[in-house]
């Protein structure tokens, strides 16, 4: 059976837009006869990827908005089911490609819960350190693109200047700039190289001045203020009902952060504040993320100061690949290496949910095992997917130009939405 029945049905194009327009007419107010349906995306610089929006507008006012997603759907969840547990880690990098190590952490936590593995302190500290650096990385891309959407191009260049330093840190520790796969089941993949912590510390000590630099470009800028203040409001009740998490939820006055409230990977041992605002507009989300970056710097410095000594992977030879040196000198390690690479490792049956606070909000991994070496089901719950549902509530009744600002403020990555 072929999934494509007739070639002319592959891309419905304009018929699709017209059909959407018909659908939108029903249920709108009587003014709907005068509204216009326009298509925004998937190739649009302000939709941050391949998001398509079908907008019904009355003059310049948004009457309704329907996101159309799936352009980046690559079936990662299906692919995971065909891989060994350890082979899924590189796939998770590609979900939210702005914070790959956060994805790795969420997946590793889920599998470790299934295996009941104890993770050594140093690996946990490294995870915290790199999760927070990933938050900085993600927020820098958010700030640069958000400001560029509003028209402040310079900020983008400055943000990417700092992001380049971060990418060099990730490259130094994992060998890859973006698809790092650094955090593995049972710990992390490599010992950080000599001098890396000094490099990170130098970056962190300098970074608050860079945040200040962005703020001097934006916070007092009248165009920035007028485009952001009072735009994209969502009530806290709506935010909860629509499943919003992360900075947009905290900007709506709900004080919930997985790192503090349901700690994982030793976050309970770090001191940090969770910024909360009650204004719930684009401006509040901007201010809140800037504060979050400062808090992330604090957490990173604590992680560097208190970095424990010891192993970077759990003591589980049947699950974790042996050290290269051991593998070449010890028969038993060689056997373990061979077995893990060729057969994987069996994971006890069960279902678990792991939850981490990613840069965009709560990220959950739901992993079901049937007792074999391949996951029976892997499901990623990314904040972006639920936050996108709230877009219509935030944009309804506002101007068309505000849609761009609101998309920037919920900070979506289409890789995490479409999977």
């Amino acid at each position, binding site marked *: 059976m072929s999934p494509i029945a007739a070639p002319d049905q592959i891309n419905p194009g304009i018929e699709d837009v017209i059909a959407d327009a018909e659908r939108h007419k029903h249920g709108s107010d009587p003014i709907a006869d005068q509204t216009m349906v326009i298509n925004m995306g998937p190739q649009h610089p302000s939709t941050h990827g391949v998001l398509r929006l079908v907008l019904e507008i009355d003059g310049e006012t948004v009457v309704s908005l329907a996101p159309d997603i799936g352009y980046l759907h690559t079936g990662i969840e*299906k692919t995971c089911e065909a891989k060994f547990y350890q082979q899924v880690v590189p796939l998770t990098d590609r979900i939210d490609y702005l914070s790959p190590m956060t994805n790795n952490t969420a997946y590793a936590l889920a599998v470790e819960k299934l295996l009941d593995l104890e993770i050594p302190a140093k690996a946990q500290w490294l995870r915290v350190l790199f999760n927070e650096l990933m938050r900085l990385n993600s927020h820098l891309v958010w700030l640069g693109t958000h400001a560029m959407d509003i028209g402040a191009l310079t900020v983008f260049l400055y943000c990417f200047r700092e992001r380049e330093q971060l990418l060099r840190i990730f490259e130094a520790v994992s060998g890859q700039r973006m698809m790092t796969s650094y955090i593995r089941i049972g710990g992390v993949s490599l010992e950080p190289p000599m001098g890396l912590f000094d490099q990170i510390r130098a970056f962190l000590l300098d970074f608050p001045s860079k945040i200040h630099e962005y703020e001097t470009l934006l916070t007092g800028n009248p165009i920035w203020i007028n485009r952001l203040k009072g735009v994209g409001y969502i009530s806290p009740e709506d935010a909860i009902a629509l499943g919003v998490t992360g900075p947009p939820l905290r900007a709506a006055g709900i004080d919930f952060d997985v790192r503090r409230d349901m700690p994982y990977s030793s976050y309970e041992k770090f001191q940090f504040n969770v910024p909360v605002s009650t204004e719930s507009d684009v401006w509040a989300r901007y201010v809140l993320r800037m504060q979050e970056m400062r808090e992330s710097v604090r957490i990173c410095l604590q992680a560097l100061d208190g970095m424990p000594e010891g192993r970077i992977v759990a003591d589980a030879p049947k699950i974790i690949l042996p050290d290269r040196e051991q593998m070449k000198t010890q028969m038993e390690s060689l056997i373990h290496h061979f077995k893990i690479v060729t057969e994987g490792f069996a994971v006890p049956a069960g279902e678990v949910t792991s939850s981490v606070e990613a840069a965009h909000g709560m990220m959950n991994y739901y992993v079901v095992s049937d007792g074999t070496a391949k996951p029976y089901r892997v499901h990623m719950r990314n904040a972006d997917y*639920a936050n996108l549902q709230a877009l219509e509530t935030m944009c309804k009744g506002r101007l068309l130009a505000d849609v761009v600002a609101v998309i920037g403020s919920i900070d979506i990555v289409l890789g995490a939405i479409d999977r």
Partner: protein
Amino acid sequence: MDPAILDTQAVFDKFPDEPALSALSDLATAAKYDREELTVTVARENIIAACEAVKAAGYNFLEDVTAVDWYPSEPRFQISYSILSFSLKRRVRLAVRLAGDDASLDSITGVWPAANFYEREVFDLFGVHFGGHPNLRRIMMPEDWQGHPLRKDYPVEGYR
């Protein structure tokens, strides 16, 4: 980690103060406490009532709706609802089992509008029908796609 409790009555005895269990005492057909996670199975006709009950018990935030295909065993589909409480800082998982030849249940979009996209995704990728959903269309795959890719009898490489 606490040992798993797989017996329904034992779970209820172990957590007499758990608000989700008290709320679901009439509706639960099974309950388990495995790897420090509470899973309560309910019958499919009770899913809306179960969601309203846990919501009233303080579990106010719907995180996720997804499915697992246990093909070829029956009942084939398991729909998993992950529900979080901001105040209790805990989550509970509601599960519904559905037969393969009658994979349909009620939509919970009336309780949590957040379920909208999640149920569309399950409909798209598993072919499970949600009655009362406001806009049950494919979300990931093209509208004219045939088959439901996350079903276990759908090949990983597709049909082509």
